[in-house]
């Protein structure tokens, strides 16, 4: 019959009119952020050994860190990310072999002033003498944790291509 399609079209829009709306009203409500979201960075300072792998891995040279030798160990004094140049590729997080650098789900890094944009994760003074108790505790704790993990990954990584290694590392970060 002539005009059937016209009526059908009207029916569809009428149905859509009453259908639930998909808009999420942002400031009041938010979509759930996925588990592996690349958001703001956090640095677990106790785990960090100031090796500088993350700074080398960064394609944009976003990360700048300063360290100082205290006793036998390197002590991280300054860790800053020029987040305005960051492309959130995650290479720094993957490259961290102490599992110290992480993503969070916080994506709101807006600032009113340009000078506030760089993300300062660590800024502290180096102690004059090596602190025995906390550094020893901090060193000891991650080591037994990492050791069972590391061989597992090597088993997976060794037979496979180097691409698999990065995948395994990404999987580690996801956890």
């Amino acid at each position, binding site marked *: 019959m002539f005009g059937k399609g*016209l009526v059908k079209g009207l029916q569809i829009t009428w149905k859509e009119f009453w259908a639930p709306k998909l808009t999420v*009203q942002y400031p009041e409500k938010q979509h759930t952020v996925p588990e592996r979201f690349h958001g703001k960075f956090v640095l677990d300072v106790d785990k960090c050994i100031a090796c500088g792998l993350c700074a080398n891995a960064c394609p944009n040279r976003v990360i700048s860190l300063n360290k100082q030798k205290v006793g036998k160990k390197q002590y991280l004094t300054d860790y800053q990310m020029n987040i305005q140049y960051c492309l959130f590729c995650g290479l720094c997080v993957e490259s961290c072999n102490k599992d110290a650098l992480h993503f969070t789900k916080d994506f709101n890094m807006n600032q009113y002033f340009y000078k506030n944009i760089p993300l300062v994760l660590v800024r502290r003074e180096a102690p004059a003498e090596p602190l025995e108790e906390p550094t020893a505790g901090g060193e000891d704790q991650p080591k037994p944790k990492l050791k069972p993990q590391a061989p597992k990954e090597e088993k997976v990584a060794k037979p496979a291509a180097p691409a698999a290694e990065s995948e395994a590392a990404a999987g580690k970060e996801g956890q």
Partner: protein
Amino acid sequence: MLENLFVGTADWLRSLLGGIGFLPTEIAESIVLLVKLVAVLVFILVNALWLVYMERKVAAFMQARIGPNRVGPWGLLQTTCDIGKLISKEIIIPKKADKVVFLLAPVLIFLPPLMVFAVLPLGKNMAALDLNIGVFYLLAIASLSTLFFFMGGWASNSKYSLLGAMRTVAQMVSYELPLVLSLLGVIMIVGSLNMSDIIAAQEHTWLIFTQPIAFLIFFIAAVAETNRCPFDLVEGESEIINGPYTEYGGMGFAMFFLAEYANIMVVCAMATIMFLGGWHAPFGLTFIPSWVWFFIKMYVLIFIVMQFRWTYPRIRIDQLMGFGWKVLVPLSLANIFVTGIGMYIYRAIGW
């Protein structure tokens, strides 16, 4: 009480002016008329503001969105805010534009809807002016707005504006014909051009039931007359960047924009009066005031017009002309013919 709210107000004003004493009745009557016309103007403006908001809401709801909801409660002040912004903008006149006509067009564009609403009975005894040849006047004035669109388009001295303006005229000429011819069936049955008589004739049966084809033709032609989708070739945002309004900014554009909604209101009010029984309450629900009924019917039609916009794609100019001349005009002529025969038979039976 509520039924006679507006009529009572007019009577009160009349008696107040009569009570002053020294005013001649003619002057008192003209003051009352002036108040009525101002009330109609305010009514149109407020409704146009509301309709812009409603259009955006309807559009959003049909696209699984929410629509404006930030300015004021539920975004109700959004249009007011937009108009405030547009008022504060500079009026830019193109260098080669015809300045007088260019500025005159948006000023005059509100005239036809105002003039039409002055004679429409918005409720029981609620026509500001009850004209004897109301329908004739209404048709003559309603098509006048095309002139102002054309003025704007011509004076802009821009190819898009001119193209859009030409399309307005072409569309008006080809769709005014089925519009008027479809109303002829109604007028034949009622036997009067007075709108109050037409409404009175629909007390028991709405004319949409006796003239369904005429209603369809009228509604389609009315949508085309107001340059609404699917007949919005005049504006055609994607092809001729808003047609006659291309060179307008600020308040000039706002006037055209609001006038579009005022025109929709006019044609929907016309359809309500001619086919949907005007202010008559259906199913004997007379406890709701007559002007509320008129309003509800008008807004249902406006909603359908808005729904058209978000359902149908824009048609081509040749399809538009073909549909107008090859389908609507013959159909409306056939409708008149059938109505005439039907009336003759009824009369022969002696009904």
